[in-house]
């Protein structure tokens, strides 16, 4: 088994989840790496869309921001931001939306707005950006986040984007027809929603990670599917492609 970091494992698991015919709304950081690794390995036809308006981008290096020139130059086409949110996201054209966040609860609701009282914040976070509408208008949502007690919380101070709702029932009750978060991919394991309670439940544990470690880094007592397995380790090809694009990116942005 090749040597790999937990962050690499997280990115590669996310890449594996993407299919050739997906139309994917990409955020920056891990999702961008995952989407482009998928494109370079098993999903050459995947359509990557960045909220800056670029459709069908095939960047050679990873963008630093969602609006880099590389995204536009390699895109099939570029549209305005209002059109992106109206025709493409709200239009229901996106099959997979990627989200991350500062804090998450067991029903995959996410907070990226504020810690403490909204009007007298302890920590002011960046805010929702595209997330509130990505969460409901994409076919399904993949979330990537590194685990930790300050990030994986029993209860959020603020819901920036809805997962399955505060008790897991609200999404359905509100009549939202898209699936919401179907995978929560962390640096330690992969969660999927329990089909009945919608609680994010551990489907597989990454190689070398223990249940104790997961418990220590989770603000609630995590549940496991009966058939919870070990996440297949990154293949040599997966690692090579990921490291290669990251090296190209580093070289390009340093220049």
């Amino acid at each position, binding site marked *: 088994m090749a040597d790999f970091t937990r962050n690499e494992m997280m990115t590669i698991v996310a890449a594996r989840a993407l299919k050739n015919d997906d139309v994917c709304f990409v955020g920056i950081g891990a999702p961008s790496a995952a989407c482009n690794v998928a494109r370079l390995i098993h999903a050459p036809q995947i359509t990557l869309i960045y909220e800056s308006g670029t459709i069908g981008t095939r960047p050679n290096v990873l963008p630093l921001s*969602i609006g880099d020139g590389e995204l536009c*130059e390699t895109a099939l086409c570029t*549209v305005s931001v209002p059109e992106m949110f109206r025709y493409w996201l709200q239009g229901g054209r996106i099959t997979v939306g990627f989200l991350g966040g500062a804090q998450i609860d067991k029903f995959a609701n996410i907070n990226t707005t504020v810690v403490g009282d909204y009007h007298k914040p*302890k920590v002011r976070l960046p805010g929702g950006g595209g997330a509130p509408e990505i969460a409901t*208008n994409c076919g399904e949502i993949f979330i990537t986040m590194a685990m930790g007690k300050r990030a994986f919380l029993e209860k959020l101070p603020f819901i920036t984007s809805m997962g399955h709702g505060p008790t897991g029932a609200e999404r359905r009750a509100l009549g939202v027809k898209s699936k919401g978060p179907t995978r929560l991919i962390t640096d330690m394991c992969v969660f999927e929603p329990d089909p009945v309670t919608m609680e994010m439940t551990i489907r597989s544990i990454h190689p070398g990670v223990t249940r104790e470690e997961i418990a220590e880094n989770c603000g609630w007592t995590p549940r496991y599917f009966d058939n919870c397995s070990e996440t297949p380790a990154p293949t040599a090809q997966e690692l090579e492609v990921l490291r290669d694009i990251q090296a190209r990116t580093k070289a390009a942005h340093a220049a």
Partner: protein
Amino acid sequence: MAKFMSLADAVAENVRDGDSVAMEGFTHLIPFAAGHEVIRQGRKHLTLIRMTPDLIYDQLIGMGCADKLVFSWGGNPGVGSTHRIRDAVENAWPHPLAIEEHSHAAMANAYEAGASNLPFAVLRGYIGVDLPKVNPKIKSVTCPYTGEVLATVPAHRPDVGIIHAQRADREGNVLIEGITGCQKEVVLASKRTIITVEEMVDKLDAPSFNSTVLPHWTIGAISVVKGGAHPSYAQGYYTRDNSFYIAWDKVSRDRDTFLAWMKENVLDKTPDAFAAHAKRSA
């Protein structure tokens, strides 16, 4: 009708204390030079509107130009926090900053509604989230056909819209290409406008990546400011100066370091200083 003038005159004529001002540019073509001129001219009590308040709004807010921020995502993209905005929101420094917070979809729709001369925008959004609880501007309408309840936001109609674009022809028609964000909508939604451009040309040569043209009669002031989007980028002219974004994290963490930087690089400079940036990273 477009009028070519110096950036100093354009800001003096068009931006007034207490105005609502939208400076847009989605990562690309951010109007830094114009923002610096607003700071130099000491404007106060502005309501600043922007989907992604980043470094230029960090600077404006840190210098005390704004009473209120209307936004949907605030941060130093790819780097981290906008420390001056956080200091204003968390600690009221240099003075309190009111915020009106939306999602990107709502902000984009609000500009679109403004450009369309509608008083509000309808969107399939804000479902199951907490923002409507803290932002009374988010309301709803019921579809007269299906009974579905949809979110609404008021249209943005800024007093002043400010953008940076690639070029203008001599008549004052302006071309934007590449990632155009919501800049066309900002110009059409605003009462007054300032556009800084990299250069003036005889012919726009419009067909290009996503080329968007603003006719001269939709524009107020145009100022040629080479490099005016630095440290962001201008497709076809110069690339993004990533090192600046990284360096800003350190500059902006400390109030005194920030103030010293602003004095040296903004207050004691003129728009011409931007030309050097255009060359450096071309």
